[in-house]
């Protein structure tokens, strides 16, 4: 499974794990992860990129969709464990101004 999500109920966090190619082919799975999470007011979202080896601009678009769905500026989304290539794509697009990057 290229995209999986797990919800931890105790600290109100949803972790979405991406493996392989992060592109348009996984858009439905990716969307379902946060659609199905039924987030509350303070739900934290973490996108774990440790297994991702590729990401294209449509994935950037998918991240924007997610951010909008979760309330735009109010959304709490972190992107973690990026490979250097993926980090580069995210920083060239200046996504660090929209998402927490670690």
């Amino acid at each position: 499974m290229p995209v999986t999500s797990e919800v931890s109920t105790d600290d109100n966090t949803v972790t979405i794990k991406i493996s392989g190619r992060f592109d348009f082919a996984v858009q439905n799975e990716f969307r379902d992860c946060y659609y199905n999470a039924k987030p509350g007011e303070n739900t934290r979202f973490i996108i774990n990129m440790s297994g991702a080896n590729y990401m294209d601009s449509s994935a950037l678009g998918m991240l924007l969709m997610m951010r909008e769905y979760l309330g735009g500026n109010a959304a709490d989304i972190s992107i973690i464990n990026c490979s250097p290539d993926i980090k580069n794509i995210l920083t060239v697009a200046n996504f660090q101004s929209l998402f927490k990057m670690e």
Partner: protein
Amino acid sequence: MGSSAKLNNQPANTSLSVLVADDDIPNRLVLQALLERQGYHVIQADDGIQAVEMFKRERPDLVLMDITMPHMDGYEATRRIKAMSEDTFVPVIFLTATSDREGLAKCVESGGDDFLTKPYNRVLLQARIDALMRIRDLYSTVQDQRNELANHQKRLDRERQLAKRLFSNIIETSSLDLPYVQSMLSPMSLFSGDILLAAPKPSGGLHVLLGDFTGHGLAAAIGALPVSSVFYGMTTKGYSIAEIVTEINRKLKKILPTDMFLAACIIDINPGSHTLSVWNGGIPSVIIYGEAEQEIIRVLPSRHLPLGIANEESFNRRVEILEMRQNDRIYMYSDGLTEATNPDGVMFGNQRLEGLFIRNRDSSELFNEIRREIIRYQAGGAQQDDMTMIELRYDQQQLEDTVFHDKTQAKLLESQASAWSFSMELSADLLTYFDPLPLLIQAVCDMQSFRGQRQQLYTVFSELFSNALDHGILNLDSTMKRNADGFAKYYMEREARLSNLREGSIKIFVAHEPNEEGGLLTIRVEDSGEGFDFRKKQLALENNVGHSGRGIQLLDTICEKVEFKGNGNIVEATYRWH
């Protein structure tokens, strides 16, 4: 299959007709009776020739064909019937007395779909017919779907062609045919998600926009239409890239869905001030290759979100400004270039690209070397992304000569010269966010055609205005611009002081007086600043050029007369046109 025949005796097959071809009348009658009891409509033929005739006229759904008949045998008749019905599946069942292999092979060879041996068994006959009808239904469903698909494809192709024409009409630009510009734009599909636009400015110099839409194809290309119209429209009217990029962002934010945006880099090459201004949102770093150093001397990374994401309040229009020297080269490219893969799926990457800059021995060949190397690297592998690259060589003279041709201007040529004047006052508050030059020039040129001298006029207005603003109001010292460091500092300082401006104003007065050859335009710009000792300054200018005062010197060459008045806070220029 909804219309398949049923195995019971109900007359469910009335809509289906069966052609029975047999020279043996009793045989035919037996079949007719059997078939009619099943609800089929039966038509009959005595021989092969008649069978073909009947088929042509009645177009039955099924044919039962005897082999041995006078005039034309069943094989030949079947061949002809099959040839007549290439688009539909008409099952032909051979009626045979024997089941010898050779005969059966011939049945299949001539196009028969099944065979039935005498004597006929009602259940067997019905089963065979049912089976073939199911195949026929399947065949026609597939056929319908194929036609539907083909029609879709055709319509899609037509739409694509149309949109492509529309698209290339809009983004087509002759500006890329400039002697100091080399570019490549290789679309992945019929449409590219990349756009490359260039337009000369009314004041001389060039604006260039390199953009990369999310995704590819039609959806991406559609977004290019508003981008190019804003880019060309505003550049032509003299707006700055900060204003253009703000407007493009506003438009795209409004029209594009959330997951679509335009990574873009827009630059302004200004031969008047030897500067390059860059706004980069989401495009790989712009590379500056120094002619003197023969190496990369500066990279300008992406500093902003791509266009179409930020709302108006949070949009950042800040540009970076740096000094340009003769023959320095500017490189812009989309990420498709470094993400090009070799047949093993390994990306070209930034290091290989930098390597090409390092290894280069002849800067005029640099662009070609990069292009060749990328193509060689991909060698047969499929191009994955759109790949766009542009090289601009800073050639001051050629940049200044890049003239803008305004079509509406030509129409105005016939209009009569007339006398008019107007004045305006810009308060500090207004100056902090409003650049009056584009509107001013537009207004002046709308009132009076200046026969293609718009570019010069623009220079006059902008020099007078920036002199009043930079030195009169903001008290900036132009000697700061003496070196590259100070250059950047100057513009940073200018921005800082401008945004904190609370007091001061600029008055602009423009008057036109026609004469036989053309007319005399007077432009007076007065700032609320303290002024300066212009007599001493003028003397200094006459003796030694220096870094500062270039603007006023430029004015002197364009205008008939440039005069300082008041305390030096008023400058009046007289421009003669014909």
